[in-house]
């Protein structure tokens, strides 16, 4: 008796706990019942397919980050060789992780090696014929840079999404190569704007202009871009439509990394512009460069295009402005992008799904309808076929439902449409354990054992069968989770939790219910099963 009392207390406590966490918040939001805030927070969340929103998958082109690193080190070596007066024919990058130095005079070979060792620590040096050296990025550096690029891209996207003011966004890395980023924005209507803002490189560079011309060819010296310089397309400062090309220094005076803030403003002609403030480090660098170059043009380059090229009239430290032919909205977006920082590499959109809220509502309606119909069918079958014992099974089923909802809410799982399907199937397959036990009890009863003995035998004989079936199902469930993305994961989680709670209800709850009924009666001759 004592034993049963404790079992019943355990069951009631479990039921109340899971009901409070899983079911009550749903009821309270449905019927407007009072609920404490922390409980509302725990309410089972709906997936994007039920709530509506945008689901994007992007790939970070990590090669960009490698190329940038290679070119930076290459330029650093070029500068170093110039200061040490070591002449070479050419320095060029071959691919994202390699560059080549050609034509080092044999007499200077040792000096070159010395300089290269000091400057290019991240590269392995391979020597070829005629004073040629190939520099290859070290494999561990490649891996680190790629990882870093993805992490930085994710953080930048997080900042941009937060600035967009989306509630409960989900941003995560995924994919076999680890270079994909999943962005889920519930309830976002302006998909195109969100996509443009998330995917914009947002790279701001301020570079001193060497020369300006109407075509690329005019800027070249002997058909080649002068060393240490590059040609950037853009429009003229007046904002007309003709294309201009700017020959600028390769190394930027200041980049977007030195930005402290950016905000929409107006330029001297009252057109929309973006004002920016540099941090102290950027201000120091900018002050030096602008002071040395008074009277020359400064190109303001955004994502590889010159937006404007004002003439430096005095030394400038921390304040600047980007003007161009912007609309008000572009200015808003641009400030947001600059504030959240540049992406370390460009992004590729792999996948886009938009689910309208009406479609989500339809899915919920049909999912719930199917669940209710399915459950009613199972419940009525169990009651008809197993009579009084069927009540036991239905109670176990209800428990299973409540525990499943409660656990999912507790771990913050997301309910998706396949999740609802998993829910119904868990119930349909979940009565399996009860059926297994009941059929065994029937067999034992037919073998003319007493009711008590039959029930005990039924439960104990079936115990290991239940363990085996559940473990096998959990194994395939684990792989389903591993494989899945988004909604499928929700489904796997539902099944997984359902299996665990089923084991508990069928073995513990069901048995205790039988014991409770039996303990009320001294002599039990028949069992309604």
């Amino acid at each position, binding site marked *: 008796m004592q034993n049963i009392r404790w079992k019943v207390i355990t069951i009631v406590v479990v039921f109340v706990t899971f009901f409070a966490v899983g079911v009550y918040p749903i009821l309270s939001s449905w019927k407007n019942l009072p609920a404490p805030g922390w409980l509302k927070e725990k309410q089972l969340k709906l997936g994007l397919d039920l709530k509506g929103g945008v689901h994007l998958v992007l790939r970070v082109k990590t090669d960009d980050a490698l190329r940038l690193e290679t070119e930076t080190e290459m330029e650093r070596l070029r500068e170093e060789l110039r200061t040490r007066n070591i002449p070479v024919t050419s320095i060029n990058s071959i691919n994202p992780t390699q560059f080549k130095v050609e034509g080092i005079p044999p007499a200077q070979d040792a000096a070159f090696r010395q300089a290269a060792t000091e400057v290019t620590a991240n590269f392995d040096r391979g020597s070829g014929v005629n004073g040629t050296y190939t520099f290859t990025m070290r494999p561990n550096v490649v891996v680190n840079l790629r990882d870093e690029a993805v992490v930085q891209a994710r953080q930048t996207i997080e900042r941009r999404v937060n600035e967009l003011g989306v509630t409960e966004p989900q941003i995560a890395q995924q994919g076999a190569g680890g270079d994909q980023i999943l962005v889920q924005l519930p309830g976002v209507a302006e998909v195109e704007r969100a996509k443009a803002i998330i995917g914009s490189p947002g790279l701001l560079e301020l570079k001193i202009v060497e020369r300006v011309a109407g075509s690329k060819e005019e800027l070249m010296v002997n058909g080649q871009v002068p060393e240490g310089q590059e040609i950037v397309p853009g429009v003229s400062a007046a904002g007309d439509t003709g294309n201009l090309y700017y020959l600028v220094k390769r190394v930027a005076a200041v980049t977007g990394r030195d930005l402290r803030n950016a905000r929409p403003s107006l330029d001297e002609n009252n057109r929309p512009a973006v004002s920016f403030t540099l941090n102290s480090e950027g201000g120091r660098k900018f002050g030096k460069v602008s002071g040395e170059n008074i009277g020359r043009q400064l190109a303001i380059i955004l994502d590889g295009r010159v937006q404007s090229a004002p003439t430096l009239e005095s030394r400038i430290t921390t304040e600047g402005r980007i003007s161009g032919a912007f609309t008000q909205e572009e200015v808003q977006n641009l400030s947001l992008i600059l504030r959240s920082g540049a992406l370390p590499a460009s992004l590729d959109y792999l996948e886009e799904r938009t*689910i309208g809220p*009406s479609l989500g509502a339809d899915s919920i309606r*049909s999912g719930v309808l199917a669940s209710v119909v*399915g459950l009613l069918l199972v419940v009525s079958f169990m009651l008809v076929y197993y009579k009084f014992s069927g009540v036991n099974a239905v109670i176990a089923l209800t428990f299973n439902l409540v525990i499943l909802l409660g656990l999912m809410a507790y771990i913050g799982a997301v309910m998706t449409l396949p999740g609802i399907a998993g829910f119904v*199937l868990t119930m349909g397959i979940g*009565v*399996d354990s009860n059926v297994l036990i009941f059929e065994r009890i029937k067999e034992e009863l037919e073998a003319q054992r007493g009711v008590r003995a039959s029930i005990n035998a039924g439960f104990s004989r079936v115990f290991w069968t239940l363990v085996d079936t559940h473990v096998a199902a959990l194994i395939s469930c684990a792989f*389903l989770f591993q494989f899945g993305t988004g909604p499928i994961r929700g489904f796997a989680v539902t099944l997984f939790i359902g299996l665990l709670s089923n084991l508990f209800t069928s073995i513990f709850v069901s048995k205790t219910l039988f014991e409770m009924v039996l303990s009320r009666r001294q002599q039990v001759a028949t069992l309604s099963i």
Partner: protein
Amino acid sequence: MHIFKNTNYDFLRWRWHAIILSWIIIIAGIVVIAKNGISKGVEFAGGTVVINKFDQPVTVQQVREALDRNFPGGGQNVVVQAYGDPSQHQVMIRVPLIGAEQGQSLSVVAQQANDALKKSNVGNFSTVSTEIIGPTVGEELTRRGVWATVLSLIGILAYLAFRFQFSFGVGAVVATMHDLLITLAFLAFFRYDMTLNVIAALLTMTGYSTNDTIVIFDRIRENLRSMRRDSLDHVINVSVNQTLGRTIIVSGTALLTALALFFFGGEVLHGFAFTMVVGIITGTYSSVFIAAAIVSFWRGASPTRAAAHAPPPSTPPAVAVQPTRKQKPQRKARAS
């Protein structure tokens, strides 16, 4: 109430019929797939799906004509279908991958399709859902799906080999593979698209099918200990018969819920529910007719512990008797 009380069917006698029937279905499935290919959902094939909800009823024909006239490249490759409940006036437009769906121009095709509809004045509509999948996503999904299936089968094989014997593991895995192939065949017969949801259903179904098989195996294992004088085949038959009631009832309840999903679950879950319905039926069938037969084949060559004590196979028991239950040794965690 008690169905299948004390049944005494000789299931193993029908194993050849069952195996031939299964092969016919599987081969027919392979032929259909070879001829038509597996129709892949947009997640796997890539491309664009737009679902538009119109203010008034429109016919698929109207939408198709609009696309033929105004969609760049014409509408011959475009699939147009009514979507969901007819009262919602929803139309699904699916355009196969054309190569432009990458980077910033990912949504170009969706835009063009909607522009074509607007230009043709088919009626006012709003887009309720867009799904655009680039070319690289499908390959990775396929690879991961195949791996998940293979690994979960290996996992189940290993677990059953550990808990039972290797031959039981083989029986369960062969039965599960059988169910997968049969279900794939039916998906091909009824031209269901291979979508993520269908893959999820396939994997769930494998779990369900092994579940069914394990219950029978467990009974065989138990009976092997109490019926040491009987042949393995006889033990198998008795065990399948003893668990028959449970097998049918559980398949019945599972089938009820799967059918509820099929009829009421809405458009999105259709493929999922269909897969589950077929999977549950074939899973039950294979547990009864295939799984134990495989164990019997596998161990047929070498005498098993039960068979070693049994009379020679030439004189099978004339009447299969329900085994008299003696006091059995308390079951241990590790059986064989």
